[in-house]
């Protein structure tokens, strides 16, 4: 991948990536600033769905579909259930943000400036070759069940433990004060 790569002549994939990236960032910013709690959860859907499109652009199609299934399908639904069960107000709630908002803004801005400067400086000459896909289901599955099978099994035990833990924590006990 030398020659033909330039900042001033972006490829079609890069243009699409930047446009979808703006959507993702906008969704994320609205998610953390929206005063309406349910709207914040729906903006999270926009951000995570856009991220799935980014995975597709990076030719990681299996991860993209898993992202759509798990994040958009279950995590956001769980969050919405949580909002409903804690009686979240439907209208705008003025106390969604705490008093240390300016400090948080300054910290986030400083972190963003540092990280972006560092990343741009470090990977100025790195190019991703997207012509040959690297992330179809077949190769991912074979490496998952050949090389990573032990962590995979450990993760299934962890999921079981999380399931039991969630049941135990949210169970109604007798004689609870």
């Amino acid at each position, binding site marked *: 991948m030398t020659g033909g790569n330039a900042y001033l002549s972006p490829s079609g994939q890069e243009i699409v990536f930047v446009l979808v990236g703006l959507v993702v960032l906008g969704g994320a910013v609205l998610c953390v600033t929206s005063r309406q*709690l349910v709207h914040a959860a729906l903006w*999270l859907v926009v951000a995570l769905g856009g991220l799935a499109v980014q995975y597709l652009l990076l*030719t990681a199609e299996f991860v993209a579909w898993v992202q759509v299934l798990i994040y958009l399908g279950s995590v956001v639904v769980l969050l919405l259930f949580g909002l409903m069960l*804690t009686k979240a107000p439907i209208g705008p709630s003025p106390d969604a943000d705490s008093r240390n908002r300016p400090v948080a803004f300054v910290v*986030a801005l400083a972190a963003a400036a540092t990280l972006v400067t560092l990343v741009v400086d470090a990977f100025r000459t790195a190019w991703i070759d*997207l012509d040959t896909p690297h992330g179809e289901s077949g190769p991912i599955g074979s490496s998952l069940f050949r090389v990573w099978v032990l962590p995979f099994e450990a993760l299934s035990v962890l999921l079981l433990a999380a399931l039991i833990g969630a049941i135990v924590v949210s169970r109604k006990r007798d004689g*609870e004060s």
Partner: protein
Amino acid sequence: MHLVYPAVLSALLFCTGLYGVLARRNAILLLMSVELMLAAVSLNLVAFDVWLRDEVHSGQVFTLFLIALAAAEIGIGLAIVLLVYRQRGTSAVDRLTELRERDGEEAADDDRERDGDRERDDAGNGNREENTVT
């Protein structure tokens, strides 16, 4: 594609999540911000895996693990938030100051607030008993 595009997007997404974690008051909004940060890390893992052409797909497999871990985290986190809400009647993280070291003046305020919470708790217990009877 230039590697800088996904790397910068992931850095900005992470910082958005960082802002959310620091600025939000509702525990569930806090969990959403944590999800944003995890998603930013996943994007980084995928981008670097595709860049390095890893033979065993470590980055993408780690992303799959990360998604499963995020699901487990959100399950446990929501269970804890719901338990706290049932017992305290609030899901604002800065109201949970039971373990804080307190000054004299603030202590009086907090005692007053806690009395209010206890009354609400009693009401909640009453409802719960009715439910168990039926």
